[in-house]
């Protein structure tokens, strides 16, 4: 049992941050939400816009408007980023699919935020990418897929300050219309992204909730003072 007794509600326009040590269950939560086949929900329920998630396959969750920015994005050799983005937009935004021209314009704008040029589109998805390039591609996909719920699993880890800033710009650019769940164990992303809610996760459950000030406390004092035994 990795996650237990967790309760969370996220509204459009809110940025929720979940902090916690390695092994606290943060990534598990992200994967469970997206429907990773290795996890099983034994108790409890998760709703997305009123729909019980257990009724939706992974691809249906994506089409319903959920997005996961992966901690470890997978390489798909031979599939070009541009083709992949286009096919994914066509799959996810079926009801209101942009024309090729709109798609190109959107792509251009998103790539500008992330500081990548056209040659990026011709490369193979995550194949031979640096850590920073992988995370930029995750955010590029997020911007193109326009999710209603964006889950970002340690998107900030392993980034230099410039890349971190661009990733933050990406998040901020969709924040008003999106519910964001940002998983991190550093405070530094929060210098650039203003969370509405901060949650601290220990041992598979949320032990403390608060506003941006909680993140600063955690940065100063660590997690020990929040251990259920010490609280």
């Amino acid at each position, binding site marked *: 049992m990795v996650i237990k007794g967790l309760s969370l509600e996220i509204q459009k326009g809110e940025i929720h941050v979940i902090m916690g040590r390695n092994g606290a269950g943060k990534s598990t939560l992200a994967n469970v939400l997206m429907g990773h086949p290795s996890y099983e929900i034994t108790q409890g329920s998760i709703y997305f816009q009123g729909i019980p998630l257990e009724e939706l396959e992974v691809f249906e969750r994506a089409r319903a408007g959920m997005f996961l920015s992966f901690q470890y994005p997978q390489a798909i050799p031979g599939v070009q980023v541009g083709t992949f983005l286009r096919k994914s937009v066509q799959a996810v935004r079926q009801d209101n699919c942009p024309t*090729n021209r709109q798609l190109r314009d959107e792509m251009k704008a998103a790539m500008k935020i992330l500081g990548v040029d056209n040659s990026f589109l011709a490369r193979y998805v995550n194949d031979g990418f640096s850590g920073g390039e992988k995370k930029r591609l995750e955010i590029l996909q997020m911007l193109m897929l326009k999710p209603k719920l964006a889950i970002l699993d340690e998107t900030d880890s392993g980034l230099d300050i410039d890349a971190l800033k661009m990733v933050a710009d990406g998040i901020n650019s969709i924040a008003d219309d999106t519910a964001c769940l940002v998983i991190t164990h550093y405070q530094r992303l929060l210098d650039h992204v203003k969370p509405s809610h901060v949650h601290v996760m220990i041992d598979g459950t949320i032990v403390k909730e608060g506003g941006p000030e909680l993140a600063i406390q955690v940065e100063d004092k660590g997690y020990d003072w929040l251990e259920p035994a010490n609280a």
Partner: protein
Amino acid sequence: MQFKSRIRAMIGLSQQMHRRGINMSQEARDMSQEARDAVGDYRYGFHDPENATIRFDFGLSEQVVRDISEIKNEPHWMTEMRVKAYKHYISRPMPDWGNSEMLNSIDFENICYYLKSSKGSETDWDEVPEDIKNTFDRLGIPNAEQKWLGGVTAQYESEVVYHSIREDLEEQGVVFLDMDSGLREYEDVVKQYFGSVVPYSDNKFSALNTAVWSGGSFLIIPEGVHVEMPVQAYFRINSKNMGQFERTLIIARPGSSVHYIEGCTAPTYSTDSLHSAVVELIAEEGSHIRYSTVQNWSTNVYNLVTKRGIAYRNSTIEWVDGNIGSRLTMKYPAVILKEEGAHAEIISVAYSGEGQHQDAGSKVHHLAPNTTSRILAKSISKNGGRSSYRGLVKVSPKAHNCKVSVVCDALLLDADSRSDTYPTMEVSNQSCVVEHEASVSKVSGEQLFYLMSRGHTEEQAMGMIINGFFEPFTKELPLEYASELNKLLEMEMVGSIG
């Protein structure tokens, strides 16, 4: 610039695939249930009623060989070569490597070695018998010819029923004929080169082909001429228990270039057919021949083919070889790098599904200094299918400063499927650089989850991974062919996930 155009091209491709998808389902509805059961997902499995003008009885003898030659009214030397080859064929044992079990299960007495369904080779589709024309229409040949090909030959059973070449190429002296016409009109050239690259005694099946050959292409590119649009040959088997033995000879004169493409399909029958071709390429100084194949025989066809080219000074021979269909394919496109500076490029993909064995690979002989070769072989096996890479690279003592690169990648889609690699390197010169890499991988659950989290179904995700795996191959093909191949592979994926 190149990248941009490729992206645009890919967008067009998807639209085209979508349209074809609609056409196909219409076609599928038209098929009777019985036909559908037999054909399965293979959409080229339809057949015409057989209207043979000449049909030989099953089986092979010296008389059959002489009769074929007589029907074709061939010169004496060709008849004698056929008979010699026949004698060699019957005396030569079946190869004891590859897939001997499958090879030995071929019933050679139950094969028709010559079947003619039309009067002759036409240069106007309207002159081609209607059934046959319809078949090629369904295969999209006349349409492709109009849009993007420099010339076409279409072979149906034993004979070429249609051939044409764009006028501008003809004016530049390009010769593109079926092999039988080539022998009639350019006897001296044929006499000089026929069997000079692949002698009948090379192997059992080159002997068989030389004995009973019929059809194929004869192509000469004059000095300095660059054929910008690809020329295509299409091979169709229609009858049951058919043997197709086309023979192709391509000569690129100094400084010329050409891209030759071949495609092949057959109806799905419960009994076996045999396709055994010989292809000979001659690349003279500074010339460039690219020979692309998308082999998509139905899974009752044994495909035993010998392909080889000789590359002279500073010339390049490229084999781009895709094996999707057939029950058993044994084919190892080869290049002899005969003079300094010659280059060989062999890119192949193999796809093996249930009951299929693709035993494919490549051979390169470095006979001269400063010659280079690059081999890339990729295979996918699924549902118990078996793919083998069998390669031979030889570097002779005189071949100084050669470069050889061999990369083999195999992808296994389930635990029942099999991949083998048999790379042989015989290097007799210390100064040469040889690289060899081989990998076997599986599609990971994490890759599928990643793609599905972007809105793709499991089948779409699998199709994407597979198309990506074959991308180094498909990007070498003209767009129309690449799209066809991607479509094929996507179809193969339908229903493949449990």
